[in-house]
């Protein structure tokens, strides 16, 4: 069985066997190149093609056949004469030109050599073109992969751009052999590769071969990596679970999301979350073990068991997510206004000390008699992720008296719960003469979870009051352009002044009036 092609030569359709077609193509290319110097090349070649078509038609009718084979092509081209025969009859006119034109066939072309390919034949094609060993080209190619992966990109680009050597003539030009009939006869016996089918199809083919061959090794390496890494993750999860169960005291200073989970849910939710994360990793590890060691598939009942446990974990986790989420349903807030003793100039500062309530004292087993109400310095910088939901507004006082309003806000399942949560907030504010000291964070009177608690402070001062605001305040002051006022980097304070239009940076104020 042989593959045949339909060709249109001299306006007639001829069935031709593939090898015969290639031989004919080589012949016609030679003829075309021979007459390319001639002004009437097109007409001459057309005449020759027409004649060849006619001879084919005669052969087919005379011998009652359907297909032109390689012998027919040989007979026809012999009758037509080779380029050498043409040359001898035209020798005298072309003698001068013959030597001027460069030898046509020794020109190499860059093709991909899919016969000797590792992936798509780019490297071996290059090696033919550059006349170096393909191993060397491949080594360089692999080395460039480590140059930021540029080698891979270059490879794909070359793969798309460089045509693949499909026909024998192309393969011969790729190797720099003469693509004439003689060379053709030499490579006549080489097997034909299948027809080119476009980049995507070829890519899939190559990928398939790759997965079967070289890829298997790489997959095993990847699988081994997953096994090692996955086992590490599982170990880490187990340690994390133990640590959480052992050390997690549900309080508001924990990191999100730990700070919103109620104390009584800890055990169940931690185990559920552990299962949700651990089981997929475990499944991945089991699968990788199978890939890496070609072992039997994972026991069906085991995999079903894992699936059910995982689903249960997901169910429990979502139950708690919804339950805790519902505690954010209602919001409540209340305001507490305290008077501030009037001064011409106030100094606002942040104080990172902590006020110990009676309950705190009890909790830490400190003798309440000695410590109640004392300020104890704590360094809370390390967990500043904890709710720092404090904002300070500075406004003009309408009645000419300074005051401080504290809005306490919180969320809860019901309004009562929300209000209770808001009432649980404790915020330290102290006036010591003209020094106003604010706490950097809110505290809870009773231990609790984070339920969106925040404190909004509004300081009202009469027009004309000057304020020295500590630089530590910058992050609590929204929308005052604090940094624009920060002119003196040595000073710990920036100076502001209350005007009819709200507070203004003293610095700007003087600048404006100076103009």
């Amino acid at each position, binding site marked *: 069985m042989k593959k045949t092609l339909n060709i249109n030569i*001299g306006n*007639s359709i001829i069935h031709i066997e593939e090898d015969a077609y290639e031989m004919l193509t080589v012949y016609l290319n030679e003829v075309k190149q021979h007459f390319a110097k001639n002004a009437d090349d097109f007409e001459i070649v057309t005449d020759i093609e027409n004649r060849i078509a*006619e001879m084919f038609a005669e052969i087919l009718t005379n011998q009652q056949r359907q297909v032109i084979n390689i012998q027919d092509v040989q007979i026809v081209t012999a009758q037509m*004469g*080779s380029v050498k025969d*043409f040359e001898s*009859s035209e020798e*005298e006119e072309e003698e001068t030109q013959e030597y001027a034109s460069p030898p046509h066939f020794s020109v190499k072309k860059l093709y991909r050599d899919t016969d000797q390919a590792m992936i798509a034949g780019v490297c071996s094609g290059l090696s033919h073109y550059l006349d170096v060993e393909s191993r060397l080209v491949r080594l360089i190619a692999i080395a460039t992969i480590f140059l930021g992966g540029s080698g891979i990109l270059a490879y794909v680009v070359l793969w798309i751009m460089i045509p693949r050597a499909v026909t024998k003539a192309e393969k011969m030009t790729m190797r720099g052999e003469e693509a004439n009939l003689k060379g053709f006869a030499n490579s006549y016996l080489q097997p034909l590769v299948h027809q080119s089918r476009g980049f995507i199809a070829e890519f899939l083919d190559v990928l398939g071969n790759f997965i079967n061959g070289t890829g298997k090794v790489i997959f095993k390496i990847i699988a081994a990596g997953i096994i090692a890494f996955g086992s590490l993750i599982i170990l880490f999860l187990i340690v994390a679970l133990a640590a959480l169960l052992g050390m997690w005291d549900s309080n508001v200073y924990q990191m999100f999301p730990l700070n919103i989970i109620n104390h009584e849910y800890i055990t169940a939710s931690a185990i559920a979350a552990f299962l949700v994360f651990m089981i997929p990793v475990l499944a991945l590890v089991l699968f990788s073990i199978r890939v890496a060691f070609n072992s039997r598939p994972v026991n069906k009942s085991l995999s079903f068991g894992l699936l059910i446990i995982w689903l249960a974990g997901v169910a429990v986790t979502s139950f708690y997510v919804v339950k805790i989420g519902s505690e954010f349903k209602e919001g409540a807030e209340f305001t507490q206004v305290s008077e501030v003793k009037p001064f011409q100039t106030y100094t606002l500062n942040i104080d990172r000390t902590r006020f110990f309530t009676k309950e705190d004292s009890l909790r830490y087993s400190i003798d309440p008699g000695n410590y109640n109400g004392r300020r104890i310095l704590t360094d809370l910088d390390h967990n500043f992720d904890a709710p720092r939901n404090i904002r300070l507004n500075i406004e003009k006082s309408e009645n000419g008296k300074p005051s401080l309003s504290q809005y306490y806000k919180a969320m809860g399942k019901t309004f009562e719960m929300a209000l209770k949560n808001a009432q649980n907030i404790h915020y330290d504010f102290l006036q010591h003469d003209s020094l106003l000291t604010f706490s950097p964070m809110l505290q809870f009177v009773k231990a609790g979870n984070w339920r969106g608690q925040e404190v909004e402070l509004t300081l009202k001062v009469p027009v004309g009051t000057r304020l020295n605001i500590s630089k530590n305040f910058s992050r609590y002051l929204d929308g005052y352009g604090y940094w624009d006022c920060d002119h003196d980097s040595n000073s710990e304070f920036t100076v502001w002044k209350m005007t009819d239009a709200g507070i203004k940076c003293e610095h700007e104020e003087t600048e404006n009036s100076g103009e």
Partner: protein
Amino acid sequence: MIAENTQTQMRKGILDYCVLLIISRGEIYASDIIAELKSARLLVVEGTLYPLLTRLKNNGLLSYNWVESTSGPPRKYYLLTEKGKSILSQLDATWQELSYAINTSKKVADNDTNDQININK
């Protein structure tokens, strides 16, 4: 080499003349020209004829008509133009001169050899 060159040049010169002679007998298809030339033992391969015909045609010696063919594509049938006819008559005259030259040369040569034979005798 010299012998080969002279042979090719002689053939080439005669080939144009013969082709014109064949076509002068009436409209004719290229492959029939080839058949005629082959019977005259002149042409080796067909491929040589097509450039020749094209060259003669472009020089205005030939023209052709497309004629429908029963098998395959339409064929080019060549015929002589007026210019071709006048050139052919010139060539005829030249050929007469050439053949006279050759015949005469040959006779002289024959005579010479005869003379030499006579002397030797």
